[in-house]
């Protein structure tokens, strides 16, 4: 067990209820209207403009699973299990059900989740959007998601997780299993917008087959009580994987994030990039591990932290493990404060010190998100920018 990853300190599942009020599809217009802003903040557009499909789950009710492009499938995993007997080959295949108490809980008491799939050769024109939303105080939402890009297909997803403004405390458990088939590509951009008393335990596994590409982006700029996740990506021959995280941790947030890349196929490539800002009393652990176990693999890890407070903490843990002589693994980790020289430079252009510090923090979080379709990339940048504008 890694330091700081002890389950004993994690959320107490028993504290939360599994009893959720049932929402009906006929309530959808009312719900969309009520939570419109919250949905938009995490990239979910109820209008579904420029989307290849939409999935919306509020509490334990799947309210929308709409397909807008042929060759794309969107439904709840509960429905998918009934429809496809072969799905058992993918169920708990990239994540082990007995991994920890949270995966066990999702295994025993699953409350839907999404199934997204592109058929062979299909490329999504627009991204698919999904949103997992908690509207009920004290609820435990236990989703199990499956995402499959069949051979030669391309699947872009923007997904948001959020809670209603009135919700203070809730638990979100999410198991996500991704399968990128031969020559396929998935980009997965996840935006979290929790509340100061919400606890979150995503558990993800990603299998990238030969020549496949997986790009995962994670954005979390609002306070959360306790969030821990550590997706594991397995790269087969010639596969490419990227994980980028953009975190602004404030108030009493406790965040433990990271990625593990297992390069088990020859000539596979991976990179992990994280940008972490810690303010107020936030406590952030930023991990990353690269494991090179096949010839000619190459991977890089870049983990940069910015401290804004004397009562915050950033604990950065980059790890490299090579088991073959031809593995090329590297890392770069740094934690620092806002540079006085940079502030002075901006004040010389007429900004006040406060404005300069704000611009530098926004710039720090403004990471180029590679591999997304241009329109989606621009939208995600715009969302990060708007959230960053609202900071402090």
């Amino acid at each position, binding site marked *: 067990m890694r330091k700081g990853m002890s389950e004993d300190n994690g959320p107490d599942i028993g504290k939360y209820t599994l009893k959720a009020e049932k929402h009906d599809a006929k309530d959808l217009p009312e719900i969309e209207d009520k939570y419109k802003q919250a949905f938009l903040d995490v990239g979910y557009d109820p209008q579904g403009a420029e989307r290849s499909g939409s999935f919306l789950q509020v509490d334990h009710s799947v309210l929308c699973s709409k397909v807008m492009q042929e060759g794309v499938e969107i439904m709840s995993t509960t429905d998918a299990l009934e429809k496809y007997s072969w799905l058992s080959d993918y169920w708990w295949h990239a994540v082990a059900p007995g991994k920890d108490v949270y995966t066990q809980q999702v295994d025993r008491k699953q409350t839907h989740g999404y199934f997204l799939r592109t058929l062979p050769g299909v490329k999504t024109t627009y991204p698919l959007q999904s949103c997992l939303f908690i509207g009920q105080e004290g609820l435990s939402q236990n989703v199990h998601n499956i995402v499959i890009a069949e051979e030669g297909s391309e699947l872009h997803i923007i997904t948001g997780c959020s809670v209603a403004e009135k919700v203070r405390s809730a638990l979100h458990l999410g198991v996500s299993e991704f399968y990128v088939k031969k020559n396929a590509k998935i980009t997965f951009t996840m935006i979290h917008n929790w509340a100061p008393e919400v606890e979150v335990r995503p558990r993800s596994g990603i299998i990238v087959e030969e020549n496949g590409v997986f790009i995962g982006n994670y954005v979390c700029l609002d306070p959360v009580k306790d969030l821990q996740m550590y997706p594991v990506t397995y790269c087969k021959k010639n596969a490419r994987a990227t994980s980028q995280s953009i975190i602004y941790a404030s108030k009493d947030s406790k965040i433990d994030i990271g990625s593990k890349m297992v390069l088990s196929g020859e000539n596979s490539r991976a990179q992990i990039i994280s940008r972490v800002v810690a303010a107020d009393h936030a406590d952030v652990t930023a991990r990353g591990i690269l494991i090179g176990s096949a010839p000619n693999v190459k991977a890089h890890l870049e983990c940069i932290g910015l401290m804004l407070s004397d009562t915050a903490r950033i604990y950065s843990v980059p790890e490299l493990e090579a088991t073959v002589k031809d593995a090329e693994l590297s890392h770069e980790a740094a934690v620092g404060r806002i540079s006085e020289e940079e502030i*002075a*430079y*901006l004040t*010389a252009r007429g900004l006040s010190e406060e404005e300069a510090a704000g611009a530098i923090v926004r710039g720090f979080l403004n990471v180029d998100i590679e591999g997304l379709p241009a329109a989606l990339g621009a939208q995600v940048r715009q969302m990060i920018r708007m959230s960053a504008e609202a900071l402090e």
Partner: protein
Amino acid sequence: MLEIRSLDLEVDGRPVLKDLNLTIKEGESHVLLGPNGSGKTSLLLGILGFPKYKVTGGSIIFKGEDITGLSTAERVKLGMGIAFQHPPVIRGIKLGEMVDLCKGDTSQQITQETRTLAKKLHFSDEFLERDVNAGFSGGEIKRSEIMQLMAQDPDFVMLDEPDSGVDIENMELIGDMIGELLHRRIRPSKRTASGLIITHLATITNYIEVDWAHVMLNGMIACSGNPNRIISDIMKGGYGKCVRECQKTMDRI
């Protein structure tokens, strides 16, 4: 425009300027020469009011106002601007956005006006998308700094070695742009912008004419006078000889 009276300046408790006096009138451009470590850059940053540069004596009067206690941003708002010699890289802020910031535009959209200005400085639209100073060459840094100044359009322009490490082609463009900033291309009576230029080898004076030259030694202005004479003295006999020659004439005055 600028009047510095008996200025004492400290950096981290170490005195860097002693009893320094300097007056720059409206429309005048001055060059500041002197060996490394003589305090030239400290003077510029002191005038600009960087927090690390503490005034321990004397005062700085700008446009008739005592600005000794004002912050850098306040001084800039009054009409000061600077081109740095070694500006820092700022991640995530694009050069184009920075130019807009100089005009007080915080929309983070690169404006058409900025694109037009960039062309004048031989920057492409793509270059404006790069993070400020990240991987810029020496010449690119100079041009980028001058472009930011042109967007700011200050009345008092400070330039820290705009001519060091610049190839001849860039130098001509830089000379042109500085000439424009300092109103050197219009009749003396119409000039309202003033300038103070640090130059190591006085290369810039081949491109623009200036009104005064000063030599700094050990945190003091050791001599001042006609730029042609001072520069030729330095070229012939170094700073020491120049200062000795200069002081003879100054004594006579």
